[in-house]
């Protein structure tokens, strides 16, 4: 990769680099998750499961990649990202319209509320559709993965960002990572936001 022009220097913590689909799914030690094993475990759980953990700990990243992995195996996969309760009908329709034997991935399952979750689970069971969801707490589905934000996870994620060798140790140093993750109680997503700001401060101090 060939990057060096100051004014074009990308901020590696921008959404386009740290969006869930861009990051490699990792465990809390920073190790890369074995997606094939998770797919097998999901099957062993009966075809439905939950990725559980606090906000910003990598649940959506795992969901995105697991969905891709399952879809690559020719199983139909639907995806719903809930942003508010207004998206509940979308989730219900996705399960209702899914092919038998398919899987529906629902991000932010907790937004459905107790009654809607029961409806979606019942509908999925009746239609023979699997559910793979992310949730901040107990989801009423077997837990497939538990997520936790740690310094090690943040460090591993930062290590895979574009041109890491060119800015790590100068614009961003190890202490910045520790300060960022400690300030937000393990919320890796918020820590990455803080590092975006930190990178901008460093970038603007550089001569143009």
């Amino acid at each position, binding site marked *: 990769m*060939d*990057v*060096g022009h100051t*004014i*074009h220097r990308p*901020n590696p913590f921008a*959404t*386009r680099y740290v969006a869930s689909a861009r990051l490699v799914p990792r465990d809390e030690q920073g190790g890369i998750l074995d997606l094939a094993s998770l797919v097998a475990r999901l099957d062993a759980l009966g075809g439905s499961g939950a990725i559980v953990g606090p906000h910003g700990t990598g649940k959506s990243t795992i969901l995105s990649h697991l969905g891709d992995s399952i879809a690559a195996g020719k199983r139909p996969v639907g995806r719903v990202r809930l942003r508010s309760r207004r998206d509940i009908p979308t989730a219900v329709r996705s399960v209702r319209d899914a092919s038998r034997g398919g899987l529906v991935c629902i991000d932010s399952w907790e937004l459905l509320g107790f009654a809607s979750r029961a409806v979606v689970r019942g509908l999925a069971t009746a239609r023979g559709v699997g559910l793979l969801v992310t949730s901040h707490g107990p989801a009423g589905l077997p837990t497939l993965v538990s997520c936790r934000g740690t310094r090690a996870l943040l460090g591993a994620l930062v290590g895979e960002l574009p041109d890491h060798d060119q800015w790590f140790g100068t614009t961003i140093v190890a202490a910045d990572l520790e300060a960022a993750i400690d300030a937000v109680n393990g919320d890796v997503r918020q820590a990455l936001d803080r590092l975006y700001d930190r990178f901008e401060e460093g970038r*603007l101090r550089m001569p*143009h």
Partner: protein
Amino acid sequence: MNAADSHGAAHGPAGSAPPFPRMDLRFGHPGRRYEPGEWVTAEYTIDGLNGERPRALERSALWYTEGKGEEDLGVYFFERVSTPETIDRVVPEGTFALQLPPSPLSYEGVIVKIRWCIRLRIFFDSGRDHVSEHVFTVGRVPPSILP
């Protein structure tokens, strides 16, 4: 001609797959800075195909936002070359030109940036593909300064 910075992204099976090619692009203007309405000319070369047969090449010019929140982008020019008769005309090297629109202008803000780029995306018969982006500047909006 002026060598451009680039970012690559690859998709496809890992492991024993051959390395992805290097896609270099040179803009006609020094500093890669253009005015709205101006013509952009560019030459590119794709090295390291290692005998792998390309299935298609996409050439596009687009702007995108870069920041912490939701992203936006607009594709201004797009061309896909995918027939066996034409692919050899654009791989492993080629040129193209396009006239820029009046806006948006490039902007180097703190919270959000607006960037223009030429994007080359090559697809192989194996199913692999590789993307290379080459940023250039439109207009002369000064970068923001932290207080």
